């Protein structure tokens, strides 16, 4: 089976929005995020409950639900160029007490998706996997 390819959304200033969000995560959260992304690349349809969505009004959006002390809710969509082999990570949000942080996360993710569709060449770049470096040991 061919592996899927991940892309990150970049804003109009060329800033990698998803990478910036990922850089703020702790090691435990980052590990869970990367584990889910690793499965997504291998076989997105196989793990039950991996991709959640669509929600009413947002037919193209999907989220990964990542449980933990901090509940991560990365938004993504298929494509935009090849909807059978690509995902683009659009926006990173959190969920606390059944509410999204930020509250308009779905709208922001959808806006990014629309921008991506309009200009797929400029508004994405290959996904940058963030790996936390081990803490330097001071002997």
């Amino acid at each position, binding site marked *: 089976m061919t592996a899927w390819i991940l892309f990150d959304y970049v804003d109009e200033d060329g800033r990698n929005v998803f990478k910036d969000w990922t850089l703020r995560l702790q090691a435990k959260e980052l590990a869970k995020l990367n584990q889910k992304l*690793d499965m997504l690349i291998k076989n997105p349809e*196989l793990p039950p*409950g991996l991709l959640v969505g669509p929600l009413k009004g947002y037919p193209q959006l999907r989220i990964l639900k990542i449980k933990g002390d901090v509940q991560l809710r990365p938004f993504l969509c298929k494509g935009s160029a090849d909807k059978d082999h690509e995902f683009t990570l659009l926006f990173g949000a959190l969920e606390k007490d059944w509410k999204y942080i930020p509250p308009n996360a779905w709208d922001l993710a959808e806006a990014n998706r629309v921008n991506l569709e309009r200009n797929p060449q400029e508004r994405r770049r290959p996904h940058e996997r963030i*790996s936390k470096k*081990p803490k330097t040991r001071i002997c």
Partner: protein
Amino acid sequence: MSELVKNLKQEFADKDYRHSYAESFLNSVIATQIKVLREMRKWRQSDLAREAEMKQSVISRLENINYSSWSIKSLQKLAQAFDVVLTVRFERFKNLALDADRFGRKALEVVEFSKDQFFSGVQEAEILQTPASPELFLSTPAGSTKEEMVTPVELLVGAHTAKTQQFQLTVGY
């Protein structure tokens, strides 16, 4: 070595990271394997629920990678329903990296006892023809780790799986 294994080799240097990755992978794999084994048998969730004497709503909950409250007892009931063996053991992190790399339907499929060629007698003759060797390859349940060399002595203290019995037969134990 694949790109993923290279990444994990580096990332697993962080203890918090590797244990969190392991927990997430474990939950994902169990849920996915339940679904794969059920689909292999062409069962609906209600069929599995009946075979395992559980409610269909429980099966639905277990077949979700975000479920994390596993009990050995529930898993044993599912193993009995699927007629496969449940193996729980501690492993080194290298095996986690390799398992993550080969994640897929094929790696999770397990035949039920009645379709296991090892017990049909066909494969037994082939096993007996294999020359005995002081060093043997041991496969993990999730697939092959061919670089893992173990001696027959180590096999004797290994888990009592069909695979180890097969190896024991080869060297005449």
